[in-house]
């Protein structure tokens, strides 16, 4: 299968597919970061995670429309405002859901799966009723269009690079919040030993609510970033959810580093194979490999050592 290409061609192919893989990697990381907090830290199986992302995407779409109508001069920078709105919208919806539903189910993780699946159905129908069944796309500002010509054979789209930078930024923020801030330490204390954390004066209920809200908020930002590279429909969230769970589980549920490493592995495998096989076969092989590795190593790539 390599025979038809020269060495130079192959190099360019791998570079291009590598960059395509990096964009896919950014997408996976953005999706998985929120879930790594909700599922990895809190143990809640949030099947509505995709719908929180879509909410962020719709908020971005609305913000972009609003800017086009009312503040056309500021349109090139609308995205940064939209991201903040997306975070607030998804985060507050997340906190509401935690208060109404999730907090009653912490002792029954498998039931959170069913309940959040119900939530995802409701949200999907809500999007369909409010925004219509059609997919919506955001108009990009000029500076994000086009691509950067690295060499003759290699082209890198600017919006892809933008999403990549955004991913790096968000990852650093999340890592800082979880590992260095006072609040992040409280989160990890609650996760490791809820009773003891409560005893030393941490308000565990509040920590739970804000943790869930943070995870959902990051999902919203991820959705916001997606509008840069694709369009959004009411059921788009469902397409991502299994991939996202696999990324998180494959990396080792509670490990942030693992999530990033597994997103990298999966996206690179997928995009390199995609060039030589059909897209669906590449996906099948990637998923099969993940499942096989998970069967051999159920705790994932990077298992956190926790006393149980």
């Amino acid at each position, binding site marked *: 299968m390599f025979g038809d290409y020269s060495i130079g061609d192959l190099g360019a192919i791998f570079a291009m597919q590598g960059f395509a893989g990096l964009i896919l990697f950014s997408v996976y990381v953005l999706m998985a970061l929120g879930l790594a907090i909700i599922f990895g830290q809190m143990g809640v199986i949030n099947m509505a995670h995709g719908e929180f992302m879509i909410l962020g995407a719709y908020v971005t779409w609305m913000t972009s429309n609003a800017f086009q109508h009312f503040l056309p001069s500021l349109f090139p920078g609308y995205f940064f405002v939209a991201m903040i709105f997306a975070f607030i919208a998804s985060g507050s919806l997340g906190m509401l859901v935690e208060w109404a539903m999730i907090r009653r189910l912490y002792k029954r993780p498998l039931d959170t799966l069913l309940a959040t699946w119900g939530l995802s159905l*409701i949200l999907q129908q809500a999007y369909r009723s409010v925004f219509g069944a059609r997919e919506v796309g955001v108009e990009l500002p000029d500076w994000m269009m086009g691509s950067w010509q690295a060499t003759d054979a290699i082209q890198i789209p600017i919006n892809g690079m933008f999403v990549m930078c955004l991913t790096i930024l968000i990852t650093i923020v999340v890592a800082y919040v979880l590992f260095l801030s006072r609040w992040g330490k409280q989160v990890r204390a609650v996760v490791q030993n809820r009773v003891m954390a409560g005893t030393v004066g941490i308000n565990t209920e509040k920590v739970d609510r804000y943790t869930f809200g943070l995870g959902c908020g990051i999902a919203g930002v991820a959705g916001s970033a997606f509008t840069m590279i694709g369009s959004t429909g009411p059921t788009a969230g469902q397409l991502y*959810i299994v991939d996202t769970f696999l990324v998180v589980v494959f990396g080792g549920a509670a490990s942030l580093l693992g999530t990033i490493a597994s997103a990298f592995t999966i996206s690179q495998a997928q995009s390199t194979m995609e060039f030589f096989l059909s897209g669906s076969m590449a996906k099948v092989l990637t998923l099969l490999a993940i499942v096989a590795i998970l069967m051999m190593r159920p705790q994932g790539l990077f298992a956190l050592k926790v006393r149980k």
Partner: protein
Amino acid sequence: MIINSRFFNRSELIGFVSLLLLLVVILPLALDVFRLNLVAKYLTYAFVAIGLVLCWGYGGILSLGQGVFFGLGGYCMAMFLKLEASSVANTKIQSTPGIPDFMDWNQLTQLPFFWKPFQSFSFALVAILLVPGIFAFIVGAAMFKRRVGGVYFAIITQAIAAILTILIVGQQGYTGGINGITDLRTLHGWDIRTDHAKYILYFVEVAFLFLAILIAQFIRLTKLGRILVAMREQEDRVRFSGYSVANFKIFAFCAAAMFAAVGGALFTLEVGFMSPSFVGIVPSIEMVIYTAVGGRLSIFGAVYGTILVNFAKTSLSETFPQLWLFGLGALFIAVVLAFPNGLAGIWGDHVQPRIDRLLASRTKKSGNGGLVANGAPAE
């Protein structure tokens, strides 16, 4: 005969008799053949639900990939029927007569090797049970021997459902792609599309359903079923008592897979086609929901739950297409939050004690008043 045995307790007997009356007498008399065929379609999901009661309700293993087994069973049946429908005489206009039409469209000139055995009906029948059974055994053995369970098992089965769907859709020439295997006409020369055939198929299916209920009830009452419950509650203690937890889990998973496969095969017969839209993640989760709504600890509850949810789905989505998803979503949340044991739980916890009390006060007979359903306690 059953009344005096300990096979069914009283509430289960009520469930059994009323289900028998409903399916054999009331529904066939009350519904026209189109509606009856819809009920038959719902009942195929009831097989999956019964399997899930064993595997999830009793064994505590939540599989989100039951659509895989439903689909495998259905495809085994569909492959046989398709080969019968695409005889050389029926497919004269194709460039290669004698192979299924979608293969011809995809420039296949020869029947693929794994289709060939399905020309034999007896092979197809065996395959309906064995293909999903063996597949479930491989998956189950690989996971349970390594003590993968709970959430991780659910996510991996989900991934398997995704893999199989992508594979079926992608390999159009071998599987019929996204349309699936359609235009199935006869079973051994007997036209399955006539009204008469639909009635007969319905009753055959109901007979299979009651057989499945009896088998599940039998499994539940033997020591095997009690070990399953013990495993769900305290897996380590069962292991320390010297039982091989993995083997019991594999058994429950395989049994659930086979129940689902029978449902899938009957589904193919009832509706005349099979497609990847019954294999993927969404249908798989819906099947879990039927069980949850009916009651994950009650075999009859699961059957009733399946019929009710599907009936609501059809009638609501006909009249209020907008409201249906809201209603369904709210139903899941309500069931999970308020009634973890589903409709059967409401019956056992709230309705039946009242009936008992009412009967006890009317007959003034004290003593054996506490005949409560012997369902296991809520998690």
